[in-house]
């Protein structure tokens, strides 16, 4: 018999019981439906222990890496600490060390921590103001860079949190940062695989992290980054990306402008449309999508139809919290 711990409470799991059955018996409010590993409703996480292999069958590789598992398929092999999806998070205090503009409406925010902050490039965190106001932002750097997190913050008209970050926060201020979340990140496997990155606006943030990570880990397959916005003034990191493309033969950077004023060196059209016109067969490719929810949803379908396997499509849609 093994012990299951959720926050302060412990539950016993009988030898013939699954984690889901044990938790339901203990009146834990956990969502579930099919009870046989198909619907993924009961997916939970064990931060400290690797779950049994059978409990991770059919999950995306990045979810497996983060110790997510299906409670209905899990017969524990040791005591487990379990986190439910909606469980309150642990926040760490960080200090703002850089706040400067990347373009006319995007702020570069770098937050430093006393100790190493563990994450995978491409994940996101929740930032929290002292009064409890909380928003999710993607991390734009990689864990190799000295205990800091980098964020790209677009000013949303009337957005309470982004306006606060843009107008009030300054170097030296502290801010609470949640544990990293999300499963949109690079795993160093199949290094010859093609990688397609498509982002709009600050959707570049997680993609830049994923790109840096893939290049640092020696990814040898072709990597295409399509970064789009309406006007050239809303793109950023253009020179840095061009320089990276010069340094790495397998990396291709295609900045896209959807309005009619397209300077030389930029592609005309929406980033997703330019990407689909450039790469016609995505069989065997890994795809990362980030930005406008409609673009992300549309592209999930289109890249799948162009041959990418559903397990190889990773996406983070920006959901704007109503103010």
């Amino acid at each position, binding site marked *: 018999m093994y012990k299951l711990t959720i926050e302060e409470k412990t539950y016993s799991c009988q030898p013939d019981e699954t984690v889901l059955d044990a938790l339901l018996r203990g009146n834990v409010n956990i969502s579930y439906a099919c*009870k*046989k590993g*198909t619907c993924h409703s009961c997916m939970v996480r064990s931060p400290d222990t690797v779950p049994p292999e059978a409990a991770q069958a*059919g999950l995306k590789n990045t979810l497996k890496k983060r110790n997510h598992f299906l409670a209905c398929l899990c017969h524990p092999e040791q005591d487990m600490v379990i986190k439910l999806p909606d469980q309150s998070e642990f926040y760490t205090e960080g200090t703002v060390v850089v706040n400067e503009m990347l373009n006319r409406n995007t702020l570069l925010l770098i937050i430093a921590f006393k100790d190493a902050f563990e994450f995978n490039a491409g994940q996101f965190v929740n930032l929290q103001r002292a009064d409890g106001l909380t928003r999710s932002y993607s991390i734009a750097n990689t864990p190799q860079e000295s205990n800091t997190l980098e964020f790209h913050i677009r000013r949303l008209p009337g957005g309470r949190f982004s306006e606060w970050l843009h107008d009030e926060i300054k170097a030296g201020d502290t801010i609470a940062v949640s544990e990293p979340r999300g499963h949109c990140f690079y795993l160093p496997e199949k290094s010859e695989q093609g990688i397609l990155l498509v982002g709009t606006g600050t959707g570049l943030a997680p993609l830049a992290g994923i790109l840096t990570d893939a290049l640092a880990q020696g990814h040898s397959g072709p990597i295409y980054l399509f970064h789009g916005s309406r006007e050239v003034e809303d793109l950023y990191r253009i020179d840095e990306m061009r320089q990276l493309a010069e340094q790495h033969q397998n990396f291709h950077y295609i900045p896209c402008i959807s309005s009619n004023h397209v300077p030389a060196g930029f592609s005309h059209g929406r980033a997703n449309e330019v990407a689909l016109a450039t790469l016609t067969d995505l069989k065997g490719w890994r795809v990362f999508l980030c930005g406008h929810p409609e673009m992300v*949803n549309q592209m*999930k379908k289109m890249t*799948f139809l162009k041959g990418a396997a*559903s397990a190889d*499509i990773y996406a983070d849609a920006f959901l704007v919290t109503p103010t």
Partner: protein
Amino acid sequence: MSKTLYERIGGEPAVNAAVDIFYRKVLNDPRINRFFDNVDMEKQAAKQKAFLTMAFGGPHSYTGQDMRTGHAHLVKMGLNDSHFDAVVEDLGATLVELNVPQELINEVVAICEPTRNDVLGR
């Protein structure tokens, strides 16, 4: 005891092999893809997997009522027998592509058929 259809067809690995091929056929099928215009790919992939598991005679918990509720909004959009037939046809073509023997495909089709009235809300 003789093996179940689900075992003979290859169990969960067979479902995993079939799900992308099948769903790609459905999304590419002009007869039915309008019903999938606004769905979330990830949630839909999980549903397709559940459907294939059922069609392959595997463990499932669908009831006739689930089928009715789950498709009611599509019936309002005009879902009818021709669309049901198209899905079954795409499923058959998927299995042909995976070299599943015809007699097993016939069994799969036979499992789908009794759900027709529930799916179409009759």
